[in-house]
């Protein structure tokens, strides 16, 4: 069951990507494509890339070198689009608040630079996990991109929480899925790249990655397609005694 190429393994590799394609179709049909064009592109490209990689894995005509080339290409495209998706969510969240959007952009740019530096340093000090440069390099790239992704996603959650901004449900769901997936993947790739696990432990870590990604795809389904609980957004009245306190303070300011 918990072996490479077992039914469970194949299911976890293929099913989330088929679900992603279904999600893309539903996003398109429900007219969410205007709100999340980059996320839509991500779902299609990521699913297509992973399904191509799976086909390369099971096809006897694909050489190991070509498999890793496809892996590299998929990884680069997926990573690039993930960061674009994070940017899309960031813009959506900050758009209604011009007074802090510039600060947010400056902070995220600075943090992004620092995270790239940290990821490069971590990669430089990592031992690598294979004799083949192409495999070791792919794993280091995985570790680096997930490091940056985790940092940026956590920053975005912190920023919104600190300023008490409101999330729209789909944006929150997209970022939540990316965040959970990035955290689990960072931990597993860090172990795979630096701790020399056995072949069986690698398979278990792979399964954990794939199962987490599957869960995250379901999170995206839930937040993008299931309507949220309707909460009557009644204005919170400013209490009379609060107004009295402000009156008093303002009077003291104007007529000291």
């Amino acid at each position: 069951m918990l072996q490479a190429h077992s039914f469970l393994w194949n299911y976890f590799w293929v099913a989330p990507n088929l679900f992603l394609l279904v999600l893309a179709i539903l996003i398109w049909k429900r007219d969410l494509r205007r709100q999340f064009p980059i996320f839509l592109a991500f779902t299609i490209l990521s699913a297509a890339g992973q399904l191509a990689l799976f086909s390369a894995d099971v096809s006897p005509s694909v050489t190991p070198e070509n498999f890793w080339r496809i892996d590299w290409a998929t990884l680069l495209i997926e990573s690039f689009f993930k960061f674009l998706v994070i940017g899309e969510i960031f813009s959506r969240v900050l758009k209604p608040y011009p007074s802090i959007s510039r600060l947010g952009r400056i902070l995220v740019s600075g943090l992004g630079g620092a995270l790239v530096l940290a990821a490069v340093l971590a990669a430089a000090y990592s031992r690598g996990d294979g004799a083949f440069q192409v495999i070791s390099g792919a794993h280091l790239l995985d570790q680096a991109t997930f490091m940056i992704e985790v940092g940026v996603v956590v920053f975005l959650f912190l920023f919104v929480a600190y300023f008490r901004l409101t999330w729209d449900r789909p944006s929150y769901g997209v970022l939540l899925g990316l965040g959970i997936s990035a955290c689990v993947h960072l931990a597993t790739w860090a172990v795979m790249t630096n701790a020399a696990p056995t072949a069986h432990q690698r398979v278990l870590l792979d399964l954990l990655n794939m199962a987490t990604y599957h869960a995250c795809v379901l999170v995206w389904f839930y937040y993008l397609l299931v309507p949220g609980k309707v909460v009557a957004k009644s204005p919170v009245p400013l209490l009379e005694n609060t107004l009295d306190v402000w009156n008093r303070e303002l009077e003291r300011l104007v007529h000291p």
Partner: protein
Amino acid sequence: MTIAILLVIAAALALAFILGITVARSLQISSGSGLAGQIQPLDIEAFRNLVDPREDEYLRRRLTAAEFRLVRRERLRAMASYVQVAGRNAAVLVRMGQAAMTGDSQTTEAARRLVDSALMLRRNAAFALLRIYIALAWPNSGLAALPVLQGYERLNGAAMLLGRLQNPAAPVRISAQL
């Protein structure tokens, strides 16, 4: 191996934080009310006194260097408490303003202004706190909390306008005197 341990710990903490935010968000959605009661009144006159550079100059002239540093640190700690309260009030007002954006156009505009002012104040409060903590280490450095005081005054005005629009029956004496 050390890198693996560090990255696994960082990833676990990040995951716990993200899941914690999700739980807090769902609790927040189900609770909703009681915001206005969270606002803490702030004695603006005392705050103004604390951030007044002339007061500091006066103390500097009257006290010895060691005494001044001691007094200055006490004033900075008090100032930090005021800034924290102002920042917390701003956070409450952000949520109140957001909740009020569903009214008529005049109320929505007032609420939008309130949210803008509150966000600016919260931002300034964070920077001011940072500078206050630095000033605690170097008590002779310049003061930092003046923008927070000015922001709080603007915020008061925005909140009062929204309060009047939401609750026209409440007596707002200041408008009659201006």
